[in-house]
């Protein structure tokens, strides 16, 4: 731009990060990250979402230090069953005399475990299928997209149920089942992004250098899809938590005595009228974490995808 000068310059670390002449790869990357962070923190709801997610991670890591009681050892069935929230049992006790607060705390580990594994399994599958389909086009595109359509046609919970029923109940199988049903939207997004950039000059330029198709897809196309995928995965996390909880509720996910929040809601179902805390506390945990991921996802989208921002 022919010299319209901006006003005051920052100093110190800020200046190093915002420098328009980075001296190394890392300085350049960190600088971009810093600008993204500043944009992100302008949105208080996004920061709230991030705080909730960070809290989830911290609670999961420090569960043994936070939980006052064991999550699986039952208490005295005569005196400690179904006690309401009090000073000794912050969230009350369930029908086995177990402290609900401790179970919710340890349950955060299960939730985090599910969410991270599903993201790690489903995302690469979806992104690879989508980018390959979008870039190569032709029959490869048709075949891959029809496969994607088939998986998309089933409601997630039903398909997960079918897989778990086939593979047997258990948290690992639940994770596999949810992953298998989660990748199709990522494939669609990746394909859409690929189609937009496939004919760009910069892709033509690297083709003209003799780049192979894998190099183009991995090094040039996937970096452009990452933003949309990150946003989508984050927004999906709430749904994944709910699906895992749903499977747990139906007895097909985590098996007792594992403190999975969905399963805890299921047991609380029988005591809903008089001992509401047995179901409500894990339910509240599900609600808060899902909300956190949704807010975080919205915040990321505003930063990473300026077109969708308000």
């Amino acid at each position: 731009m022919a010299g319209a000068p901006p006003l005051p310059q920052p100093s110190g670390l800020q200046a190093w990060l915002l420098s328009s002449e980075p001296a190394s790869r890392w300085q350049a990357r960190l600088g971009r990250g810093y600008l993204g962070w500043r944009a992100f923190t302008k949105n208080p709801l996004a920061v709230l979402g991030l705080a909730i997610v960070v809290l989830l991670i911290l609670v999961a890591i420090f569960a043994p230090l936070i939980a006052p009681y064991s999550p699986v050892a039952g208490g005295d069935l005569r005196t400690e069953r179904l006690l309401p929230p009090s000073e000794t049992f912050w969230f009350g006790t369930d029908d086995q005399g177990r402290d609900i607060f401790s179970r919710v705390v340890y349950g955060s580990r299960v939730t985090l475990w599910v969410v991270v594994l599903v993201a790690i399994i489903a995302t690469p599958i979806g992104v690879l299928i989508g980018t390959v389909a979008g870039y190569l086009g032709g029959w490869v595109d048709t075949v891959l997209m029809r496969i994607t359509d088939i998986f998309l046609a089933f409601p997630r919970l039903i398909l997960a149920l079918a897989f778990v029923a086939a593979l047997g109940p258990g948290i690992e199988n639940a994770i596999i089942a949810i992953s298998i049903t989660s990748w199709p939207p990522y494939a669609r997004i990746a394909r859409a992004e690929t189609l937009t950039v496939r004919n760009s000059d910069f892709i033509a330029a690297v083709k003209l250098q003799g780049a192979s198709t894998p190099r183009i897809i991995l090094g040039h196309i996937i970096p452009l899809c990452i933003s949309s995928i990150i946003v989508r995965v984050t927004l999906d996390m709430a749904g994944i938590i709910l699906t895992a909880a749903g499977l747990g509720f139906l007895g097909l996910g985590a098996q007792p005595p594992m403190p999975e929040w969905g399963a805890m809601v299921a047991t609380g179902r029988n005591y809903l009228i008089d001992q509401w805390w047995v179901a409500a506390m894990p339910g509240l945990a599900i609600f808060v974490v899902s909300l956190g991921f949704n807010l975080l996802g919205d915040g990321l989208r505003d930063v990473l995808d300026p077109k969708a921002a308000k």
Partner: protein
Amino acid sequence: MLDIQNLKVVYGTGRLRVEAVKDVSFHVEAGASYGLVGESGSGKSTVLRAICGLAPISAGRVLVDGQGVKTPRDKAFYRTVQMVFQDPYASLHPRHTVDRTLSEPLAIHGEKDAEARILQALREVGLGPSFRFRYPHQLSGGQRQRIAIARALILRPKVLLLDEPTSALDASVQAEILNLLDELRRKMGLTYILVSHDLAVVAHLCDRLLVMRHGEGVEETTAAALRSGQASSSYTRELIDASRGFSRDAAKAATAASL
């Protein structure tokens, strides 16, 4: 060095069939600079894309250094022929630093000594090492185009295809880039094929040129002839007149002529 014989490029089939290039032939000697001039829809950019394999050759031949080109093009071709695109805002990957953009061709062709060559490439296009780790959005239009030129030249090709390299740039920046291209051609003994809609730019950089219209060559002429206002085809004459800019007397004459 470069021979185009009866080139024809057709896109699409059936109702959507478009003959972007109908029948174009020309010959460029090594070290020469050849221009393709025309307005939008003339097919001039398509000729360049057909040469480097981005557009299909439906009929005719393209010969580089006496050899017909293979489809798909091989690595040896890409070491001989490179291209600079029109839009400096679109020809650099938005998420790659300059360093990555320049090191990629070297990595693809297994060239060692990337560090030294990247710094040399930056020097050749008049940019210092401070530009090495910038992202495209931190560069001006002229700087991006210099990077694009550096990228094209880093493999030391013999032929450079230039697709309207200065149309998207400001006038003052255009002058700098044209001077750079001129200097590089003389220093490195490159062969240029320059596509432009601007007669003055083509006359400045090229010795010979082909005027194109609707996918066909209309007239092959020289920069010298253009400067002296000679043209055998009325279309070329029209282009020369239009390049002189708006003039109220010419407008009145044109209106009078059309009545």
